[in-house]
């Protein structure tokens, strides 16, 4: 008896030690992935930045997910129905969706998460992503109880969501990390420690293994993920690179397989040395110059239009931004969803010299004598912002407008604009959260004091935006939004000058990377070849 027990123990020991050896015999596929910076937090309800979104996309899976081309495809939901009036969405959840600890993913996990993100105590910066859901806003304001939320679990695998108004971009919203589920048990058990490695339970293709600030976040393939069979990379190391040149060096040394951004100063070098490893793709973002319209000298739309005409966007994109930005003539970037017929400033294709003549004429009409108008160009710290403003100042000189330049430090800058600071022209950028024109045009609604830096107030514009919000027919809606943008471009309370583009370095060893307007590249669609 004693002997057999002993030999059993021996056998067990051999098996136990052999098992991991067998596992390591097949080398792990590791992907060292550059990210812009570390996250503020891994609690997705409290995240707001793009590098955070990159992490969350790997850790969690929403009802729908963006595929490699950023098209919306089924995620935890295998199918859904939308009611005739566009107000009720019924999602059928897949049976094999599991959390990283093996628990099934249920409709209740989504309800729990959606209630938590609206809880004022969570203080979620993106709670408003889900405001289209019935009572979400009221709960976030503390006026209603969490249970009143218009998201209900009919059963474990059926989730019903009721909306305030038809929201044609609602499925797009569900790809945002604010719409991801949460594992109720571990969140309640660990409280604000639930994001720690070892505590965190996630339902995406990857699970959190380690997080060393300023070093890396290690994620390991989630064996319980329903599509684990098709996930080819075993370990992702997300490495933060606040210094883009550092990522380039490590990329060239073969230590990282992709960089999420590049150092524009080295554009020429990279173009020459890296060839098609350098990716530049149009991106869902606009860079524009808000004009304080209530100032007397800038109140006349003709003056603002003249300033806009004189700005040579091609020069800015090519010489200042080294093609990491594209010339911009509208506030809604082209290529966006639900906007088949984009509208641009009428002088988009005109020669800059003709535009300058036209601008001078407009100024004359507005009663502005040559050399009599001086505007202040204000920007936040940043080499490219500074150079952009310097170039704009030069361009304005060509139409007899003087410009002075003021630089402000970043944190105070946005505060200053938000609080109706006393500026003439500033710079601002907006990256869309979802691919829909509404996500850009809402910036200039008169009630939007947080983003309407020019403090532009136009009743017609507001009316069009309100009308679009209740129009279910996508084609009719896009026409209304187009009218709104047309009006905006006629008044130019903010001068669009550039579109963002996404830039990345991608090693030829990394397969499956598809450039897309959302710049979303979940690791589950990628693979590494040696």
């Amino acid at each position, binding site marked *: 008896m004693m002997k057999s027990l002993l030999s059993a123990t021996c056998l067990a020991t051999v098996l136990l030690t052999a098992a991991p050896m067998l596992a390591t015999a097949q080398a792990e596929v590791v992907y060292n992935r550059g990210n812009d910076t*570390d996250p*503020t*937090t*891994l*609690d997705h309800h*409290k995240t*707001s*930045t793009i590098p955070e979104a990159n992490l969350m996309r790997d850790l969690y899976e929403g009802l729908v997910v963006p595929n490699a081309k950023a098209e919306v495809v089924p995620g935890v939901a295998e199918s859904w129905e939308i009611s005739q009036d566009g107000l009720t969405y019924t999602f059928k959840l897949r049976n094999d969706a599991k959390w990283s600890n093996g628990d099934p993913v249920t409709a209740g996990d989504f309800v729990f998460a959606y209630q938590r993100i609206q809880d*004022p*105590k*969570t*203080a*979620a*910066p993106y*709670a*408003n992503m889900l405001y289209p859901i019935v009572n979400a806003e009221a709960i*976030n*304001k503390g006026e209603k109880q969490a249970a009143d939320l218009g998201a209900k679990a009919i059963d474990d695998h059926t989730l019903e969501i009721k909306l305030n108004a038809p929201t044609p971009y609602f499925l797009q919203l569900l790809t945002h990390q604010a719409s991801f589920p949460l594992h109720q048990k571990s969140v309640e058990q660990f409280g604000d420690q639930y*994001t*720690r490695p070892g505590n965190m339970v996630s339902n995406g293709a990857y699970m959190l293994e380690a*997080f*060393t*600030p*300023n*070093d890396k976040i290690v994620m390991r393939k989630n064996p319980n993920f329903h599509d684990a069979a098709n996930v080819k990379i075993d370990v992702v190391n997300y*490495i*933060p*690179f*606040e*210094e883009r*040149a*550092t990522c380039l*060096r*490590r990329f*060239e*040394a073969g*230590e990282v397989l992709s960089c999420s951004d590049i150092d524009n100063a080295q554009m020429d070098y990279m173009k020459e040395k890296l060839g098609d490893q350098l990716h530049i793709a149009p991106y869902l973002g606009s860079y524009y110059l808000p004009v304080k319209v209530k100032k007397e000298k800038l109140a006349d739309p003709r003056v603002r239009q003249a300033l806009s005409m004189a700005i040579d966007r091609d020069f800015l994109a090519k010489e200042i931004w080294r093609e990491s930005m594209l010339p911009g003539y509208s506030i809604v970037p082209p290529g966006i969803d639900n906007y088949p017929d984009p509208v641009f400033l009428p002088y988009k294709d005109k020669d800059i010299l003709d535009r300058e003549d036209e601008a001078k004429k407009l100024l004359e009409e507005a009663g502005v004598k040559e050399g009599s108008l001086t505007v202040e160009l204000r920007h936040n710290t940043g080499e490219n912002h500074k150079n952009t403003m310097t170039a704009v100042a030069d361009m304005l000189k060509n139409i007899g407008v003087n410009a002075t330049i003021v630089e402000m*430090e*970043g*944190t*105070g*800058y*946005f*505060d*200053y604009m*938000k609080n109706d600071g006393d500026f003439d022209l500033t710079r601002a*950028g*907006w990256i869309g959260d979802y691919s829909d024109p509404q996500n850009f045009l809402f910036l200039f609604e008169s009630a939007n*004091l*947080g*983003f309407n830096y020019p403090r532009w107030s136009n009743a017609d514009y507001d009316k069009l935006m309100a009308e679009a919000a209740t129009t279910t027919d996508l084609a009719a809606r896009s026409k209304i939004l187009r009218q709104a943008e047309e009006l905006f471009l006629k008044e130019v309370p903010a001068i669009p000058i550039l579109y963002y583009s996404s830039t990345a370095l991608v090693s030829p060893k990394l397969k499956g990377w598809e450039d897309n307007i959302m710049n979303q590249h979940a690791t589950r669609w990628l693979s590494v070849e040696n």
Partner: protein
Amino acid sequence: MFTYVLRRLLGAVPTMFVIVTIAFFMIRLAPGGPFDLERPLDPLIMQNLERAYNFDKPLWQQYFIYLGNLAQGDLGPSFTRRDFSVVDLFRVGLPVSIQIGSLSMLIALIVGTVLGALAALRQNSWVDYMVVGTATFGITIPTFVIAPLLSLLFGVLMGWLPAGGWGTWKHMILPVVTLSLPQIAVVARLTRGATIEALRSNHVRTARAYGLPTRVVVGVHALRAAMLPVVSYLGPAAASLLTGSVVVETIFGIPGIGRYFVQGALGRDYTLVMGTVVVIALFVIVFNLIVDILYAWLDPRVRYD
């Protein structure tokens, strides 16, 4: 001696108090706050956040809450890294910074004094010119030039060492070299000057007159006196080296605490900035004390009783 150390340590308490108070109110003077991002938050959400972090309370109340926590060794939560407390961040980062910093210190001390002493002994020879020339060069070239150059040369072009990152001893070589080069230069120059002076001093002349071998005259009597300016330089230098270098950590991607000062200040992470201030102040106080004690040991004329 013991009472002296005790007295100095007690004296550090009011110093720390003043530093903490000034830093606390100065960072609040800077415009903006930790929740101001490129895209402003909904006012309602902002209110929720401010309530969650006590920002809705008057400043003096926040100050006393902070002091109370500090007295218990709690540096508070970080605002820009909300999954960590400030103490958590230092627990991970400080050992890294100390490893790199102390290695650089050690190398600077050994290489610097040897080079400096050699130059002094062979004054105005080619050895001297080499050392002084290289040292001047080493001081003038900033680390933000040397660091990427080394990384490019040994990491990208030759492929001998990692271009960046953290993990193995190989990852330490380039950052340590980068950090120690300017220190070697300073130490060599200080040692050279002080040794030349010491060699001319009365007690060394006496030692020579006694007929002591040069080895002893230089190694024991001259160098010991020559170490005084080096030690007084190295005290504050050590405090700054051990608390990490923003430039080197950023360029090589090292998870030390040097970056927190800048990241914290730019992100208006009040508690993180305060934590860094407290740590750096502690290091400066401690190293100044060590310098003073070493002084008494090196120079018999110094007495603290």
